[in-house]
Protein backbone atom coordinates (compact mmCIF):
# COMPACT_ATOMS: atom_id res chain seq x y z
CA UNK A 1 0.00 0.00 0.00
CA UNK A 2 1.32 3.43 -0.98
CA UNK A 3 2.19 5.84 1.81
CA UNK A 4 2.35 9.58 1.42
CA UNK A 5 4.54 12.19 3.01
CA UNK A 6 1.74 14.49 4.13
CA UNK A 7 -0.44 12.62 6.55
CA UNK A 8 -4.15 13.18 6.98
CA UNK A 9 -4.68 14.35 10.56
CA UNK A 10 -8.07 13.52 12.01
CA UNK A 11 -9.66 16.32 13.99
CA UNK A 12 -12.94 16.73 15.79
CA UNK A 13 -15.02 19.81 16.31
CA UNK A 14 -17.49 21.04 18.85
CA UNK A 15 -19.73 24.07 18.65
CA UNK A 16 -21.00 26.36 21.32
CA UNK A 17 -24.14 28.22 20.33
CA UNK A 18 -23.99 31.91 21.14
CA UNK A 19 -27.34 33.70 21.26
CA UNK A 20 -27.24 36.79 19.06
CA UNK A 21 -28.83 40.18 19.60
CA UNK A 22 -31.23 39.94 16.67
CA UNK A 23 -34.54 38.22 16.24
CA UNK A 24 -37.26 38.31 13.61
CA UNK A 25 -41.03 38.22 13.92
CA UNK A 26 -41.79 38.89 10.25
CA UNK A 27 -40.20 38.13 6.90
CA UNK A 28 -39.11 41.76 6.63
CA UNK A 29 -37.29 41.42 9.94
CA UNK A 30 -35.78 38.14 8.77
CA UNK A 31 -34.34 39.99 5.77
CA UNK A 32 -32.89 42.71 8.02
CA UNK A 33 -31.38 40.03 10.24
CA UNK A 34 -29.89 38.19 7.27
CA UNK A 35 -28.31 41.41 6.04
CA UNK A 36 -26.75 42.32 9.36
CA UNK A 37 -26.04 39.14 11.30
CA UNK A 38 -22.50 37.82 11.64
CA UNK A 39 -20.95 35.25 9.31
CA UNK A 40 -20.93 32.90 12.29
CA UNK A 41 -24.70 33.25 12.42
CA UNK A 42 -25.22 32.38 8.74
CA UNK A 43 -22.88 29.42 9.28
CA UNK A 44 -24.81 28.31 12.35
CA UNK A 45 -28.23 28.31 10.68
CA UNK A 46 -27.09 26.60 7.48
CA UNK A 47 -23.89 24.54 7.68
CA UNK A 48 -23.98 23.71 11.35
CA UNK A 49 -27.68 22.94 11.56
CA UNK A 50 -27.30 20.42 8.75
CA UNK A 51 -24.77 18.57 10.86
CA UNK A 52 -26.91 18.71 13.98
CA UNK A 53 -30.00 17.50 12.13
CA UNK A 54 -28.29 15.11 9.74
CA UNK A 55 -30.79 12.37 10.59
CA UNK A 56 -33.59 14.34 8.89
CA UNK A 57 -33.28 13.41 5.26
CA UNK A 58 -36.64 14.67 4.02
CA UNK A 59 -37.55 18.32 3.90
CA UNK A 60 -35.05 19.76 6.37
CA UNK A 61 -32.29 21.88 4.93
CA UNK A 62 -31.61 24.91 7.08
CA UNK A 63 -33.13 26.85 9.99
CA UNK A 64 -34.33 29.74 7.85
CA UNK A 65 -36.38 27.47 5.59
CA UNK A 66 -37.80 25.58 8.56
CA UNK A 67 -38.90 28.80 10.29
CA UNK A 68 -40.46 30.23 7.13
CA UNK A 69 -42.37 26.97 6.67
CA UNK A 70 -43.56 26.38 10.22
CA UNK A 71 -43.89 29.86 11.69
CA UNK A 72 -44.84 32.03 8.71
CA UNK A 73 -46.58 29.32 6.68
CA UNK A 74 -44.99 30.53 3.42
CA UNK A 75 -44.38 27.19 1.71
CA UNK A 76 -43.20 28.76 -1.54
CA UNK A 77 -40.41 30.80 0.04
CA UNK A 78 -39.53 27.93 2.39
CA UNK A 79 -39.09 25.65 -0.59
CA UNK A 80 -36.73 28.09 -2.30
CA UNK A 81 -34.66 28.56 0.86
CA UNK A 82 -34.52 24.82 1.44
CA UNK A 83 -33.28 24.30 -2.10
CA UNK A 84 -30.08 26.26 -1.41
CA UNK A 85 -27.35 23.66 -1.34
CA UNK A 86 -24.43 24.54 0.92
CA UNK A 87 -22.15 22.46 -1.31
CA UNK A 88 -22.48 25.20 -3.90
CA UNK A 89 -20.87 27.73 -1.59
CA UNK A 90 -17.28 28.19 -0.59
CA UNK A 91 -17.89 31.48 1.21
CA UNK A 92 -20.48 32.66 3.70
CA UNK A 93 -20.74 35.97 1.84
CA UNK A 94 -22.05 34.23 -1.28
CA UNK A 95 -24.52 32.17 0.73
CA UNK A 96 -25.75 35.28 2.56
CA UNK A 97 -26.22 37.06 -0.77
CA UNK A 98 -28.50 34.30 -2.05
CA UNK A 99 -30.47 34.07 1.19
CA UNK A 100 -31.06 37.83 1.12
CA UNK A 101 -31.96 37.74 -2.56
CA UNK A 102 -34.62 35.06 -2.07
CA UNK A 103 -36.20 36.67 0.99
CA UNK A 104 -35.91 40.16 -0.52
CA UNK A 105 -37.55 39.14 -3.79
CA UNK A 106 -40.37 37.45 -1.91
CA UNK A 107 -40.97 40.48 0.31
CA UNK A 108 -41.01 42.75 -2.72
CA UNK A 109 -43.43 40.50 -4.61
CA UNK A 110 -45.75 39.90 -1.64
CA UNK A 111 -45.51 42.96 0.64
CA UNK A 112 -48.73 41.94 2.47
CA UNK A 113 -47.03 38.72 3.63
CA UNK A 114 -43.73 40.42 4.43
CA UNK A 115 -45.11 42.23 7.47
CA UNK A 116 -47.31 39.46 8.84
CA UNK A 117 -46.41 38.28 12.34
CA UNK A 118 -44.93 34.80 12.61
CA UNK A 119 -46.25 32.27 15.12
CA UNK A 120 -42.89 32.24 16.95
CA UNK A 121 -39.90 34.56 16.56
CA UNK A 122 -36.69 33.53 14.85
CA UNK A 123 -33.61 34.07 17.03
CA UNK A 124 -30.30 34.57 15.30
CA UNK A 125 -27.58 32.52 16.97
CA UNK A 126 -23.99 31.92 16.03
CA UNK A 127 -21.52 29.08 16.30
CA UNK A 128 -18.35 29.32 18.34
CA UNK A 129 -16.06 26.59 16.99
CA UNK A 130 -13.58 24.61 19.04
CA UNK A 131 -11.46 21.97 17.34
CA UNK A 132 -9.35 19.25 18.91
CA UNK A 133 -6.87 16.86 17.28
CA UNK A 134 -7.80 13.22 17.76
CA UNK A 135 -4.15 12.16 17.77
CA UNK A 136 -4.73 9.85 14.81
CA UNK A 137 -3.36 10.30 11.34
CA UNK A 138 -3.27 8.34 8.08
CA UNK A 139 -0.61 7.88 5.44
CA UNK A 140 -2.17 4.95 3.60
CA UNK A 141 -5.66 4.19 2.32
CA UNK A 142 -6.06 1.50 4.99
CA UNK A 143 -5.19 3.90 7.79
CA UNK A 144 -7.45 6.49 6.23
CA UNK A 145 -10.38 4.08 6.12
CA UNK A 146 -9.78 3.05 9.70
CA UNK A 147 -9.69 6.70 10.83
CA UNK A 148 -12.95 7.56 9.08
CA UNK A 149 -14.67 4.48 10.49
CA UNK A 150 -13.77 5.62 14.03
CA UNK A 151 -14.76 9.27 13.68
CA UNK A 152 -17.59 10.77 15.72
CA UNK A 153 -20.43 12.48 13.86
CA UNK A 154 -18.88 15.86 14.62
CA UNK A 155 -15.47 14.82 13.32
CA UNK A 156 -17.00 13.40 10.17
CA UNK A 157 -19.07 16.57 9.69
CA UNK A 158 -15.97 18.73 10.18
CA UNK A 159 -13.97 16.95 7.50
CA UNK A 160 -16.79 16.27 5.05
CA UNK A 161 -19.18 19.23 5.26
CA UNK A 162 -17.77 22.36 6.90
CA UNK A 163 -14.37 21.82 5.26
CA UNK A 164 -15.57 23.62 2.12
CA UNK A 165 -15.41 26.94 3.87
CA UNK A 166 -11.91 26.24 5.15
CA UNK A 167 -10.60 24.95 1.84
CA UNK A 168 -12.58 27.56 -0.12
CA UNK A 169 -13.03 24.82 -2.71
CA UNK A 170 -16.04 22.78 -3.75
CA UNK A 171 -14.63 19.71 -2.18
CA UNK A 172 -14.05 18.23 1.25
CA UNK A 173 -11.02 17.30 3.36
CA UNK A 174 -11.25 13.60 2.48
CA UNK A 175 -11.46 14.13 -1.27
CA UNK A 176 -8.80 16.82 -1.16
CA UNK A 177 -6.31 14.51 0.53
CA UNK A 178 -7.21 11.46 -1.56
CA UNK A 179 -6.66 13.41 -4.78
CA UNK A 180 -3.67 15.45 -3.67
CA UNK A 181 -1.99 12.97 -1.36
CA UNK A 182 -2.74 9.53 -2.76
CA UNK A 183 -3.46 10.60 -6.34
CA UNK A 184 -6.88 8.92 -6.27
CA UNK A 185 -8.75 11.62 -8.17
CA UNK A 186 -11.61 9.42 -9.30
CA UNK A 187 -12.29 8.09 -5.80
CA UNK A 188 -12.06 11.66 -4.49
CA UNK A 189 -14.67 12.82 -6.97
CA UNK A 190 -17.05 9.95 -6.26
CA UNK A 191 -16.85 10.69 -2.55
CA UNK A 192 -17.51 14.37 -3.13
CA UNK A 193 -20.70 13.47 -4.99
CA UNK A 194 -22.36 11.69 -2.06
CA UNK A 195 -25.56 13.61 -1.33
CA UNK A 196 -25.45 14.94 2.22
CA UNK A 197 -29.07 16.14 2.07
CA UNK A 198 -30.64 12.77 1.37
CA UNK A 199 -28.25 10.80 3.57
CA UNK A 200 -27.61 10.84 7.29
CA UNK A 201 -24.01 11.22 8.46
CA UNK A 202 -24.03 7.47 9.13
CA UNK A 203 -25.29 6.51 5.69
CA UNK A 204 -22.92 9.02 4.06
CA UNK A 205 -20.04 7.46 5.93
CA UNK A 206 -21.19 3.95 4.99
CA UNK A 207 -21.25 4.93 1.30
CA UNK A 208 -17.86 6.56 1.59
CA UNK A 209 -16.36 3.47 3.22
CA UNK A 210 -17.85 1.27 0.49
CA UNK A 211 -16.19 3.44 -2.16
CA UNK A 212 -12.86 3.17 -0.34
CA UNK A 213 -13.25 -0.60 0.01
CA UNK A 214 -13.88 -0.87 -3.71
CA UNK A 215 -10.67 1.07 -4.32
CA UNK A 216 -8.75 -1.15 -1.92
CA UNK A 217 -9.91 -4.27 -3.74
CA UNK A 218 -8.43 -2.83 -6.92
CA UNK A 219 -5.00 -2.51 -5.31
Amino acid sequence: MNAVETAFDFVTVSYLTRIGNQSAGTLTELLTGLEHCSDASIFHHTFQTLGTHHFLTEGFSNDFAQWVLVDTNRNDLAEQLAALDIRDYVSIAALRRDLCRLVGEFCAAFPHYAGQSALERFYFCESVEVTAPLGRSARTLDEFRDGIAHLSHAGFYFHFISSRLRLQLQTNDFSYWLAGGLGLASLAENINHIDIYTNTLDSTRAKLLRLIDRERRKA
Partner: protein
Amino acid sequence: MSEALTLTRIPLDDYAGLRGAGEIEELRALAKPLRGRSIEMINSTAIGGGVAEILNRLVPLAEELDLHFKWDVMTGGEDFFDVTKSFHNALHGAPYHASPRDFEIFLAYTQRNRAALPLDSEFVVIHDPQPAALIDARKPGSNHWVWRCHIDLSHPNRAVWDFLEKFVSRYDGAMFSSPEFSRQLPIPQYLFYPAIDPLSEKNQDLEPEFIAQVLARFRIDPMRPILTQISRFDRLKDPVGVIRAYRIVKRYFDCQLVLAGGSASDDPEGAVVLKEVLREADNDPDIRVIELPAWAPLEVNALQRASTIVIQKSLREGFGLTVSEALWKKKPVVASAVGGIPIQIIHKHTGLLAHSVEGTAYQIRFLLSHPEIAAKLGEHGHQHVKENFLITQKLKRYLTLFLALARGS
Protein backbone atom coordinates in the same frame (compact mmCIF):
# COMPACT_ATOMS: atom_id res chain seq x y z
CA MET B 1 -21.08 24.22 54.62
CA SER B 2 -21.82 22.23 51.53
CA GLU B 3 -24.01 19.16 51.88
CA ALA B 4 -22.60 15.67 51.42
CA LEU B 5 -23.16 14.61 47.85
CA THR B 6 -23.74 11.06 46.67
CA LEU B 7 -22.86 10.66 43.03
CA THR B 8 -24.15 8.06 40.60
CA ARG B 9 -21.16 6.56 38.82
CA ILE B 10 -21.63 5.01 35.39
CA PRO B 11 -18.40 4.48 33.44
CA LEU B 12 -18.08 6.70 30.39
CA ASP B 13 -17.38 3.69 28.20
CA ASP B 14 -20.85 2.33 29.02
CA TYR B 15 -22.24 5.09 26.80
CA ALA B 16 -20.19 3.89 23.81
CA GLY B 17 -22.85 1.29 23.02
CA LEU B 18 -25.41 4.05 22.56
CA ARG B 19 -23.31 6.87 21.15
CA GLY B 20 -20.50 4.99 19.44
CA ALA B 21 -16.86 4.67 20.49
CA GLY B 22 -15.96 7.66 18.30
CA GLU B 23 -18.11 9.95 20.39
CA ILE B 24 -16.41 8.89 23.61
CA GLU B 25 -12.99 9.25 22.02
CA GLU B 26 -14.04 12.76 21.00
CA LEU B 27 -14.90 13.65 24.60
CA ARG B 28 -11.46 12.49 25.68
CA ALA B 29 -9.84 14.57 22.93
CA LEU B 30 -11.75 17.69 23.93
CA ALA B 31 -10.95 17.14 27.60
CA LYS B 32 -7.23 16.62 27.02
CA PRO B 33 -6.24 20.32 27.07
CA LEU B 34 -8.34 20.75 30.23
CA ARG B 35 -6.75 17.88 32.15
CA GLY B 36 -5.94 18.79 35.72
CA ARG B 37 -7.74 22.11 35.51
CA SER B 38 -10.25 22.88 38.19
CA ILE B 39 -13.98 23.36 37.71
CA GLU B 40 -16.53 24.13 40.37
CA MET B 41 -20.31 23.84 39.99
CA ILE B 42 -22.54 25.48 42.56
CA ASN B 43 -26.27 25.11 42.95
CA SER B 44 -28.69 25.21 45.85
CA THR B 45 -29.86 21.64 46.29
CA ALA B 46 -28.15 18.27 46.43
CA ILE B 47 -31.25 16.15 45.91
CA GLY B 48 -34.41 16.74 43.93
CA GLY B 49 -34.86 18.97 40.96
CA GLY B 50 -33.47 18.71 37.48
CA VAL B 51 -30.17 20.52 38.15
CA ALA B 52 -29.14 18.19 40.95
CA GLU B 53 -30.20 15.18 38.85
CA ILE B 54 -27.97 16.30 35.99
CA LEU B 55 -24.97 17.25 38.16
CA ASN B 56 -25.22 13.95 39.98
CA ARG B 57 -24.41 12.19 36.72
CA LEU B 58 -22.28 14.82 35.04
CA VAL B 59 -19.65 15.20 37.77
CA PRO B 60 -18.50 11.53 37.80
CA LEU B 61 -18.25 11.50 34.00
CA ALA B 62 -16.12 14.65 34.07
CA GLU B 63 -13.90 13.17 36.77
CA GLU B 64 -13.28 10.22 34.50
CA LEU B 65 -11.83 12.68 31.98
CA ASP B 66 -9.25 13.76 34.61
CA LEU B 67 -10.87 17.11 35.24
CA HIS B 68 -10.83 18.42 38.81
CA PHE B 69 -14.56 18.76 38.97
CA LYS B 70 -16.18 19.88 42.22
CA TRP B 71 -19.86 20.21 42.98
CA ASP B 72 -20.77 22.37 45.96
CA VAL B 73 -24.21 23.13 47.27
CA MET B 74 -25.13 26.49 48.69
CA THR B 75 -26.87 26.31 52.04
CA GLY B 76 -29.51 28.52 53.56
CA GLY B 77 -32.26 28.66 56.14
CA GLU B 78 -35.98 28.44 55.54
CA ASP B 79 -36.15 32.24 55.21
CA PHE B 80 -33.57 32.16 52.39
CA PHE B 81 -35.38 29.47 50.46
CA ASP B 82 -38.73 31.23 50.96
CA VAL B 83 -37.20 34.31 49.36
CA THR B 84 -35.52 32.41 46.53
CA LYS B 85 -38.73 30.47 45.79
CA SER B 86 -40.54 33.80 45.50
CA PHE B 87 -37.74 35.09 43.29
CA HIS B 88 -38.01 31.97 41.15
CA ASN B 89 -41.75 32.42 40.63
CA ALA B 90 -41.35 36.16 40.06
CA LEU B 91 -38.69 35.57 37.42
CA HIS B 92 -41.15 33.22 35.72
CA GLY B 93 -43.54 36.16 35.62
CA ALA B 94 -45.71 35.55 38.69
CA PRO B 95 -46.92 38.67 40.56
CA TYR B 96 -44.64 39.51 43.49
CA HIS B 97 -43.92 42.52 45.62
CA ALA B 98 -40.28 42.35 46.63
CA SER B 99 -39.47 43.98 49.97
CA PRO B 100 -36.03 45.37 50.95
CA ARG B 101 -35.95 42.70 53.67
CA ASP B 102 -36.09 39.95 50.99
CA PHE B 103 -32.99 41.33 49.30
CA GLU B 104 -31.21 41.64 52.67
CA ILE B 105 -31.91 37.98 53.47
CA PHE B 106 -30.66 36.96 50.02
CA LEU B 107 -27.42 38.91 50.42
CA ALA B 108 -26.85 37.79 54.03
CA TYR B 109 -26.90 34.11 53.03
CA THR B 110 -24.73 34.85 50.01
CA GLN B 111 -22.18 36.38 52.37
CA ARG B 112 -22.22 33.30 54.65
CA ASN B 113 -21.76 30.90 51.74
CA ARG B 114 -19.04 33.06 50.28
CA ALA B 115 -17.02 32.51 53.43
CA ALA B 116 -17.56 28.76 53.38
CA LEU B 117 -17.22 27.77 49.73
CA PRO B 118 -13.80 27.51 48.04
CA LEU B 119 -14.71 29.47 44.87
CA ASP B 120 -11.12 29.32 43.71
CA SER B 121 -11.42 27.08 40.66
CA GLU B 122 -10.34 28.16 37.21
CA PHE B 123 -13.90 27.71 35.95
CA VAL B 124 -16.82 28.45 38.25
CA VAL B 125 -20.34 27.61 37.07
CA ILE B 126 -23.15 29.08 39.13
CA HIS B 127 -26.58 27.53 38.64
CA ASP B 128 -29.72 29.65 38.84
CA PRO B 129 -30.49 32.78 40.88
CA GLN B 130 -29.92 31.44 44.42
CA PRO B 131 -26.09 31.57 44.32
CA ALA B 132 -25.87 34.30 41.62
CA ALA B 133 -24.50 36.96 43.99
CA LEU B 134 -21.49 34.77 44.84
CA ILE B 135 -19.80 36.57 41.94
CA ASP B 136 -18.86 39.10 44.64
CA ALA B 137 -16.30 36.54 45.79
CA ARG B 138 -14.52 36.44 42.47
CA LYS B 139 -10.85 37.01 43.04
CA PRO B 140 -8.81 39.12 40.64
CA GLY B 141 -7.04 36.89 38.17
CA SER B 142 -7.71 34.76 35.22
CA ASN B 143 -10.47 32.49 36.45
CA HIS B 144 -13.74 32.34 34.54
CA TRP B 145 -17.22 32.62 36.00
CA VAL B 146 -20.37 31.67 34.08
CA TRP B 147 -24.01 31.73 35.12
CA ARG B 148 -26.33 28.91 34.04
CA CYS B 149 -29.96 29.96 34.21
CA HIS B 150 -32.52 27.16 33.99
CA ILE B 151 -35.46 29.56 34.30
CA ASP B 152 -37.65 31.14 31.64
CA LEU B 153 -36.63 34.80 31.92
CA SER B 154 -38.75 36.02 29.03
CA HIS B 155 -41.18 37.95 31.29
CA PRO B 156 -39.39 38.48 34.61
CA ASN B 157 -40.59 40.57 37.51
CA ARG B 158 -38.79 43.88 36.98
CA ALA B 159 -37.66 44.47 40.57
CA VAL B 160 -36.21 40.98 41.03
CA TRP B 161 -34.47 40.96 37.67
CA ASP B 162 -33.05 44.46 38.17
CA PHE B 163 -31.57 43.25 41.46
CA LEU B 164 -30.07 40.09 39.92
CA GLU B 165 -28.90 41.73 36.72
CA LYS B 166 -26.27 43.73 38.61
CA PHE B 167 -24.62 40.43 39.55
CA VAL B 168 -25.25 38.54 36.31
CA SER B 169 -23.65 41.31 34.23
CA ARG B 170 -20.34 40.66 35.99
CA TYR B 171 -20.03 37.06 34.80
CA ASP B 172 -18.01 36.07 31.73
CA GLY B 173 -21.09 34.56 30.16
CA ALA B 174 -24.63 33.36 30.80
CA MET B 175 -26.29 30.20 29.53
CA PHE B 176 -29.99 29.77 28.81
CA SER B 177 -32.13 26.82 27.70
CA SER B 178 -33.79 28.79 24.89
CA PRO B 179 -32.88 31.99 23.01
CA GLU B 180 -36.29 33.28 24.06
CA PHE B 181 -35.14 33.29 27.70
CA SER B 182 -32.05 35.42 27.09
CA ARG B 183 -31.89 39.07 28.20
CA GLN B 184 -30.17 42.20 26.99
CA LEU B 185 -26.86 41.77 28.81
CA PRO B 186 -23.37 43.12 28.25
CA ILE B 187 -21.92 39.59 28.39
CA PRO B 188 -22.03 36.72 25.87
CA GLN B 189 -25.08 34.50 26.16
CA TYR B 190 -25.02 30.86 25.14
CA LEU B 191 -27.59 28.19 24.42
CA PHE B 192 -27.26 25.25 26.79
CA TYR B 193 -29.69 22.37 26.97
CA PRO B 194 -30.61 20.16 29.90
CA ALA B 195 -30.00 16.49 29.25
CA ILE B 196 -31.30 13.04 30.02
CA ASP B 197 -29.22 10.07 31.04
CA PRO B 198 -30.12 7.13 28.78
CA LEU B 199 -28.73 4.69 31.35
CA SER B 200 -30.74 6.04 34.28
CA GLU B 201 -33.74 4.19 35.68
CA LYS B 202 -36.03 6.73 34.06
CA ASN B 203 -34.72 6.04 30.57
CA GLN B 204 -33.13 2.60 30.46
CA ASP B 205 -34.75 -0.24 28.53
CA LEU B 206 -37.40 -2.13 30.47
CA GLU B 207 -38.64 -5.69 30.29
CA PRO B 208 -42.11 -5.93 28.66
CA GLU B 209 -43.29 -7.89 31.72
CA PHE B 210 -42.47 -4.97 34.01
CA ILE B 211 -44.32 -2.52 31.75
CA ALA B 212 -47.32 -4.86 31.74
CA GLN B 213 -47.22 -5.03 35.56
CA VAL B 214 -47.23 -1.24 35.84
CA LEU B 215 -50.19 -0.97 33.46
CA ALA B 216 -52.06 -3.61 35.42
CA ARG B 217 -51.30 -1.85 38.70
CA PHE B 218 -52.83 1.37 37.39
CA ARG B 219 -55.69 -0.45 35.61
CA ILE B 220 -54.66 0.74 32.14
CA ASP B 221 -55.78 -1.36 29.17
CA PRO B 222 -52.74 -2.22 27.01
CA MET B 223 -54.99 -3.11 24.07
CA ARG B 224 -56.36 0.39 23.45
CA PRO B 225 -54.47 3.60 22.58
CA ILE B 226 -52.90 5.32 25.59
CA LEU B 227 -52.38 9.08 25.62
CA THR B 228 -50.08 10.20 28.43
CA GLN B 229 -48.91 13.42 30.00
CA ILE B 230 -46.28 13.10 32.71
CA SER B 231 -45.99 16.24 34.80
CA ARG B 232 -46.70 17.59 38.23
CA PHE B 233 -50.21 18.90 38.89
CA ASP B 234 -49.54 22.49 38.00
CA ARG B 235 -51.76 24.89 36.04
CA LEU B 236 -48.81 25.79 33.80
CA LYS B 237 -48.81 22.16 32.60
CA ASP B 238 -52.50 22.59 31.68
CA PRO B 239 -53.76 19.14 32.74
CA VAL B 240 -57.34 20.37 32.40
CA GLY B 241 -56.58 21.39 28.80
CA VAL B 242 -55.21 17.90 28.19
CA ILE B 243 -58.50 16.36 29.36
CA ARG B 244 -60.43 18.70 27.04
CA ALA B 245 -58.22 17.70 24.11
CA TYR B 246 -58.72 14.02 25.03
CA ARG B 247 -62.52 14.48 25.01
CA ILE B 248 -62.35 15.76 21.42
CA VAL B 249 -60.15 12.82 20.40
CA LYS B 250 -62.45 10.40 22.23
CA ARG B 251 -65.28 11.24 19.80
CA TYR B 252 -63.27 9.51 17.09
CA PHE B 253 -61.00 7.02 18.88
CA ASP B 254 -61.59 4.63 21.76
CA CYS B 255 -58.56 5.81 23.70
CA GLN B 256 -57.45 6.26 27.31
CA LEU B 257 -55.79 9.22 28.99
CA VAL B 258 -53.11 8.94 31.67
CA LEU B 259 -52.17 12.00 33.70
CA ALA B 260 -49.33 11.05 36.01
CA GLY B 261 -47.29 13.29 38.23
CA GLY B 262 -45.61 13.67 41.58
CA SER B 263 -47.81 13.54 44.65
CA ALA B 264 -49.56 16.77 45.51
CA SER B 265 -49.58 15.96 49.24
CA ASP B 266 -46.83 18.44 50.16
CA ASP B 267 -47.78 21.09 47.64
CA PRO B 268 -50.91 23.07 48.56
CA GLU B 269 -51.22 24.56 45.07
CA GLY B 270 -50.75 21.13 43.50
CA ALA B 271 -53.56 19.73 45.65
CA VAL B 272 -55.93 22.43 44.37
CA VAL B 273 -54.98 21.69 40.76
CA LEU B 274 -55.40 17.97 41.36
CA LYS B 275 -58.96 18.62 42.56
CA GLU B 276 -59.64 20.65 39.41
CA VAL B 277 -58.29 17.80 37.31
CA LEU B 278 -60.46 15.20 39.07
CA ARG B 279 -63.50 17.43 38.66
CA GLU B 280 -62.79 17.82 34.94
CA ALA B 281 -62.20 14.05 34.60
CA ASP B 282 -65.69 13.54 36.05
CA ASN B 283 -65.14 9.85 36.86
CA ASP B 284 -64.46 8.98 33.23
CA PRO B 285 -63.29 5.35 33.53
CA ASP B 286 -60.80 5.91 30.69
CA ILE B 287 -59.01 8.76 32.44
CA ARG B 288 -56.35 7.65 34.92
CA VAL B 289 -55.10 10.37 37.23
CA ILE B 290 -52.04 8.91 38.94
CA GLU B 291 -50.28 10.46 41.90
CA LEU B 292 -46.77 9.05 41.83
CA PRO B 293 -44.28 9.20 44.69
CA ALA B 294 -41.70 12.02 44.37
CA TRP B 295 -39.14 9.56 43.02
CA ALA B 296 -40.74 6.91 40.78
CA PRO B 297 -38.41 6.70 37.76
CA LEU B 298 -39.27 3.14 36.76
CA GLU B 299 -43.02 3.81 36.82
CA VAL B 300 -42.56 6.97 34.72
CA ASN B 301 -40.36 5.03 32.32
CA ALA B 302 -42.94 2.24 32.00
CA LEU B 303 -45.86 4.64 31.47
CA GLN B 304 -43.94 6.51 28.78
CA ARG B 305 -42.95 3.27 27.04
CA ALA B 306 -46.52 1.95 27.13
CA SER B 307 -47.95 5.14 25.63
CA THR B 308 -49.26 5.40 22.10
CA ILE B 309 -48.75 9.18 22.13
CA VAL B 310 -47.09 11.38 24.75
CA ILE B 311 -48.52 14.85 25.31
CA GLN B 312 -46.86 17.91 26.87
CA LYS B 313 -49.47 20.62 26.69
CA SER B 314 -47.68 23.20 28.85
CA LEU B 315 -48.69 26.86 28.89
CA ARG B 316 -45.17 27.89 30.01
CA GLU B 317 -42.14 25.65 30.15
CA GLY B 318 -38.48 25.92 31.12
CA PHE B 319 -37.26 23.18 28.86
CA GLY B 320 -39.70 20.31 29.36
CA LEU B 321 -37.26 17.43 29.62
CA THR B 322 -40.15 14.94 29.74
CA VAL B 323 -40.38 15.58 25.99
CA SER B 324 -36.83 14.32 25.49
CA GLU B 325 -37.56 11.36 27.76
CA ALA B 326 -40.50 10.37 25.55
CA LEU B 327 -38.61 10.97 22.31
CA TRP B 328 -35.74 8.83 23.57
CA LYS B 329 -38.30 6.01 23.88
CA LYS B 330 -39.27 6.63 20.23
CA LYS B 331 -42.70 7.90 21.18
CA PRO B 332 -44.60 10.35 18.97
CA VAL B 333 -45.07 13.55 20.96
CA VAL B 334 -47.69 16.29 20.64
CA ALA B 335 -46.60 19.35 22.59
CA SER B 336 -47.14 23.08 22.98
CA ALA B 337 -44.81 25.45 21.18
CA VAL B 338 -43.59 27.09 24.41
CA GLY B 339 -40.22 27.51 26.16
CA GLY B 340 -37.65 24.92 25.20
CA ILE B 341 -40.16 22.52 23.63
CA PRO B 342 -39.71 23.71 20.00
CA ILE B 343 -35.99 22.98 20.37
CA GLN B 344 -36.89 19.34 21.02
CA ILE B 345 -39.92 19.12 18.74
CA ILE B 346 -39.01 20.18 15.22
CA HIS B 347 -42.52 20.40 13.85
CA LYS B 348 -43.39 17.55 11.48
CA HIS B 349 -39.89 16.10 11.86
CA THR B 350 -39.46 15.00 15.49
CA GLY B 351 -43.03 15.51 16.69
CA LEU B 352 -46.00 17.82 16.30
CA LEU B 353 -46.48 21.23 17.88
CA ALA B 354 -49.83 22.72 18.84
CA HIS B 355 -51.04 26.07 20.13
CA SER B 356 -54.48 25.26 21.57
CA VAL B 357 -56.72 22.51 22.98
CA GLU B 358 -58.29 22.01 19.56
CA GLY B 359 -54.88 21.97 17.85
CA THR B 360 -53.58 19.41 20.33
CA ALA B 361 -56.64 17.22 19.73
CA TYR B 362 -56.25 17.50 15.97
CA GLN B 363 -52.58 16.48 16.05
CA ILE B 364 -53.38 13.50 18.28
CA ARG B 365 -56.16 12.39 15.92
CA PHE B 366 -53.82 12.77 12.97
CA LEU B 367 -51.20 10.53 14.59
CA LEU B 368 -53.75 7.93 15.67
CA SER B 369 -54.94 7.84 12.05
CA HIS B 370 -51.42 7.59 10.66
CA PRO B 371 -49.41 5.22 12.83
CA GLU B 372 -46.66 5.00 10.20
CA ILE B 373 -46.09 8.78 10.47
CA ALA B 374 -46.21 8.52 14.26
CA ALA B 375 -43.53 5.82 14.16
CA LYS B 376 -41.33 7.92 11.89
CA LEU B 377 -41.63 10.97 14.14
CA GLY B 378 -40.71 8.79 17.10
CA GLU B 379 -37.66 7.43 15.29
CA HIS B 380 -36.48 10.90 14.28
CA GLY B 381 -37.17 12.17 17.78
CA HIS B 382 -34.96 9.43 19.19
CA GLN B 383 -32.13 10.46 16.83
CA HIS B 384 -32.60 14.11 17.76
CA VAL B 385 -32.24 13.32 21.47
CA LYS B 386 -29.29 11.03 20.80
CA GLU B 387 -27.55 13.83 18.93
CA ASN B 388 -28.37 16.74 21.22
CA PHE B 389 -29.93 16.00 24.60
CA LEU B 390 -28.00 13.13 26.20
CA ILE B 391 -25.76 13.61 29.23
CA THR B 392 -22.67 12.93 27.11
CA GLN B 393 -23.61 15.83 24.82
CA LYS B 394 -24.05 18.04 27.85
CA LEU B 395 -20.57 17.13 29.02
CA LYS B 396 -19.27 17.93 25.54
CA ARG B 397 -21.00 21.33 25.63
CA TYR B 398 -19.34 22.14 28.96
CA LEU B 399 -15.92 21.08 27.67
CA THR B 400 -16.46 23.30 24.63
CA LEU B 401 -17.44 26.22 26.85
CA PHE B 402 -14.36 25.85 29.04
CA LEU B 403 -12.09 25.57 26.01
CA ALA B 404 -13.69 28.63 24.44
CA LEU B 405 -13.35 30.61 27.67
CA ALA B 406 -9.75 29.53 28.13
CA ARG B 407 -8.82 30.73 24.67
CA GLY B 408 -10.73 33.97 25.19
CA SER B 409 -13.56 33.46 22.69
